[in-house]
């Protein structure tokens, strides 16, 4: 019994790790952990993550096909839908998953290396990665069904999704910090993603709206990104007037800065239970 009861000595005396080494080790470990918890949990969850956009598309195509057959909902309607849905889901999943990230990992803050922001960033990495996989999978299925889904502007498409990821992460960190002491806020934030879904022009073309409404809708940075994503896929698709790339980037920077400021101000409080 005595032989194995003595704890193993570290072969070399442990060297002081630099801040960067600690940060890297923590993020790497957290990403692995999130990934295992996310994928390894229940297979039904993994399957749903994968087919959610497709199920969405199928449902909308069926319903709208019955309701009316207007000209622009031609044979390419699924492509129109998917090119808006996927970037929107990227944002929504990031924002809502990050919101619960601190609570879900609270036990880990007993290890001094782990800070709340680490859990949020690693979650953002995993979520973005998962969504990009779903993205590729959905496009592949549509291509297999015979739709043309190769983006005409691949760089633009990547750019749009990168901004989407940053915006979703910024918004997620922000709502995680703000809702930490007000957990009820979370269901409210989750509910607002529904009108946001409509206001981002995911299922219909905002061009069809009267000008005075469109001006208000253009305040929503997601609308810009959704329209730009479509334009990147379908060159013939002309984005609504007033859509540009600068505005969502500026909003992303502003949201990111605000999230960091509030995180910094609240960082000590986030570790403890309210």
């Amino acid at each position: 019994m005595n032989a194995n009861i003595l704890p193993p000595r570290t072969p070399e005396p442990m060297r002081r790790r630099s801040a960067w080494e600690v940060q890297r080790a923590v993020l790497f470990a957290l990403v692995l952990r999130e990934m295992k918890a996310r994928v390894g949990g229940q297979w039904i969850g993994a399957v749903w993550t994968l087919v959610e956009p497709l199920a969405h598309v199928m449902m909308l195509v069926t319903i709208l096909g019955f309701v009316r057959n207007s000209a622009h909902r031609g044979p390419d309607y699924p492509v129109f839908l998917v090119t808006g849905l996927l970037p929107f889901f990227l944002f929504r999943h990031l924002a809502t998953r990050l919101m619960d990230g601190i609570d879900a990992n609270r036990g880990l803050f007993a290890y001094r290396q782990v800070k709340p922001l680490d859990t949020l960033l690693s979650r953002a990495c995993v979520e973005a990665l998962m969504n990009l996989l779903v993205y590729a999978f959905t496009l592949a299925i549509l291509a297999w069904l015979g739709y043309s889904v190769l983006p005409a502007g691949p760089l633009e498409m990547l750019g749009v999704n990168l901004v989407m990821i940053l915006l979703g992460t910024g918004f997620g960190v922000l709502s995680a910090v703000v809702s930490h002491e007000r957990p009820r806020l979370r269901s409210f934030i989750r509910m607002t993603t529904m009108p946001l879904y409509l206001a981002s022009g995911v299922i219909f073309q905002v061009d069809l709206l009267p000008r005075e409404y469109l001006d208000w809708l253009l305040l929503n940075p997601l609308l810009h990104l959704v329209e730009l994503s479509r334009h990147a896929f379908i060159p013939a698709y002309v984005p609504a007037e007033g859509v540009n790339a600068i505005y969502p980037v500026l909003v992303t920077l502003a949201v990111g800065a605000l999230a960091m400021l509030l995180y910094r101000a609240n960082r000590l409080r986030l570790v403890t239970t309210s």
Partner: protein
Amino acid sequence: MIELRALTKSYRTRQGRRYVFRNLNFTFPPGSNIGLIGRNGAGKSTLLRLLGGIDQPDHGAVVTDCRISWPVGLSGGFQTSLTARENVQFVCRIHGAHGEALRSKVRFVQDFAEIGDYFDLPMRSFSSGMRSRVAFGLSMAFDFDYYLIDEVMAVGDAQFRAKSKEVMMARLKQANVILTSHNMPDIRLYCNVVLHVDQGRVAVHEDIEAGIRAYQGTASAA
């Protein structure tokens, strides 16, 4: 060396801000096994959290060149949908162990916990005793200069308790312990210095019995 420099720590409560420590300067006696005693709410656990880097002081600092553990036997950090092995690997990784170092630590925890095949099952199926076995083994797998113990781990059956004590004592040959307890026999067993925490002040008692008397004096007066 562990030193508290002008340390202030407060918490917000509904009745305003409560100060646990105000401008506290204190140097821990080097190379001793330290028992923190004091009434409930005196700030023992807060002090332990500050030492463990879990909480940060409002002002001032905890200055140290020692490696201080996380609270020994802590099982709150386990993700129950992951296996014990995956949880142990996670803690090894954040502490910078990889490759052979990681494998040897995982092997040690597995041998120590003696939970058989459960080691590779999700921890949600564990009893609390099995969880504590893994948690305690994990703490003992790392070389620290100071082990923080918040209330002594009286977990598991008699055989496991004896083994825990044995391995703890083996660790204490090269390391020290900072321990909070209301159980005086534990203090007498592990510690050679007592710190009496009372009303935001810390008093050192080199003589354990004198420290215990001071604590019991305030406890009965209160």
